[in-house]
């Protein structure tokens, strides 16, 4: 059974630090897309993992099955989970023309501080929201709320369903509250 390869792939890259659930964010997004009958390929930067070091993870999404098995070089969407990575040029490497940035930032970003090819810049104070609801400044799930509002890549509902395979009970509820707040609060830089 040979599948036809399709070209309409959306590549998302998440940036954070080891221990912040960057890979988990990429997988929750992928599982949400699977719930919507989309096809996905989600993976971390391959190799040894080091707590605190910058890490990236990827989710590739398409409405239909695709077979390409390559790493992601030119993401359409970049999600920055850790604010200390906002000022690093390598965070935005390969962003496609007209690409979308979804940033965890305490203050409104200035367009001129970001790569010119960024078509849209969205921002939310993810650390504050995470701290408020979860009691820790780990914004991986929070930024998924911001991401789906900014891009409509999957529905908020699907994210919350997919979240259920990673968190249960009280911690699930807290994450849901945080995700919903980020969904409401995220703003586009005009």
């Amino acid at each position: 059974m040979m599948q036809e390869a399709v070209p309409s792939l959306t590549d998302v890259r998440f940036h954070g630090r080891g221990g912040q659930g960057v890979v988990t964010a990429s997988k929750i997004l992928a599982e949400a897309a699977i719930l919507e009958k989309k096809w996905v390929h989600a993976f971390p930067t391959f190799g040894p993992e080091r707590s605190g070091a910058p890490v990236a993870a990827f989710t590739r999404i398409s409405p239909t099955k695709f077979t390409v098995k390559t790493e992601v070089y030119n993401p359409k969407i970049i999600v920055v989970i850790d604010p200390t990575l906002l000022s690093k040029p390598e965070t935005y490497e390969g962003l496609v023309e007209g690409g979308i940035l979804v940033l965890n930032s305490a203050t409104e970003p200035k367009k001129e501080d970001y790569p010119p090819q960024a078509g849209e810049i969205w921002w939310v104070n993810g650390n504050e929201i995470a701290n408020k609801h979860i009691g820790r400044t780990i914004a991986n799930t929070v930024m998924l709320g911001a991401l789906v509002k900014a891009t409509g890549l999957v529905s908020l509902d699907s994210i919350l369903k997919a979240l259920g395979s990673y968190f249960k009970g009280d911690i699930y509820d807290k994450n849901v509250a945080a995700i919903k707040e980020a969904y409401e609060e995220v703003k586009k830089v005009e």
Partner: protein
Amino acid sequence: MAKVENQEVKGLTGDQAVAYALLNIDPDVVPAYPITPQTIIMEKFSEFWADGLVKTELVHVESEHSAMSAAVGASATGARVFTATASQGVALMYEILFIASGSRLPIVMAVANRALSAPINIHGELTDQLVTRDAGWVSFIGEDAQEAYDHTIIGFKIAEYPEVSLPFMYGLEGFIVTHALEPVYMLDKKTIYDFIGEFREPSNWVFAPGNPGAQGLLALPDYYMELKYQQEQGMKNARKVIPKVLDEFGEITGRYYHEVEPFHMEDAKYAFITAGASSGTAKAVVQRLRSKGEPVGMVKLRTIRPYPDEQLSELLKDLDGVMVVDRSVTFGSPASIQATDLASALLKHRKFPRVLSSAIVGLGGRDITEKDFEGLYEQLKKDVQEDVSRTHWWGVRI
């Protein structure tokens, strides 16, 4: 068996997919020794075991040599046995791989394909599996997490056919398959059980109380050769059994697999031969080139042993050029590992493309990109134009 509708779909990495297949196979014995990138297979399976979801005897051993030795011992008692390893782990098992096949034990093993040391590297490469091609195992390579799941089930069925009675290994490439999440369609316990069936003891004899006997005996020049000939008969029988099992599996799942899978080979003048994860990338490139009118196709190779020589020679005869895209390495050989096999197959059947080139690509986990395949297509056309078969170290900095 009828097709199973509404198969549960779950986002799983390749390693997790293997563990989920094992959950519903519930093998009798699993000897385990960890090595990246296989680790998650056993981690996940251990969770199932700890939760009481499988009845398996999970044996923690002190090395891969011991893992395969334990597998041999357990299989000789008539148990259904699974293990998994990679890279240096396969290499350490090497001695016992021959004992498993020579003793005709239907052990199933996943290989999370990883480059061999030195220098040390944990990433994807097929050399670890390809160097076992003379060890007498039926050997498959898969492209994605779904195929890793499916091969786990298919493997037991093929290995345990009485007329095959050979161990079965199957590859899933390190990280790009083992650690990458994809949608995986799964089967329920009863369907898997009905498909694989009761364990059919391949030999007339197993270690059991009240059934005295011996195994692993001495066979001197008077008998050794006959026993090796019987092993080859088992491999020959596997050639007949494999398509039957794959068909049956297709009927249940809707996923029809073949030993070789041609894609856009109609009227092709040029073709890639691929195995494993890069096959998916090749499909996308072939499709794009076709839409531009380029006469190119590809054949994905699923079975490394037994080697599908007849099908390949039929598909590749009279082509202008063939490029074997080989994520493995051998040294001082006439061509890449897979191209050497292919050349023998073509000569045996006396059906040839004009040029048979090979490319050594993606060693140590280096990404094999769409651009690589586009470049390899141009290179193949150049080789044909110059009428030379070459081995290319593709993308290497010299």
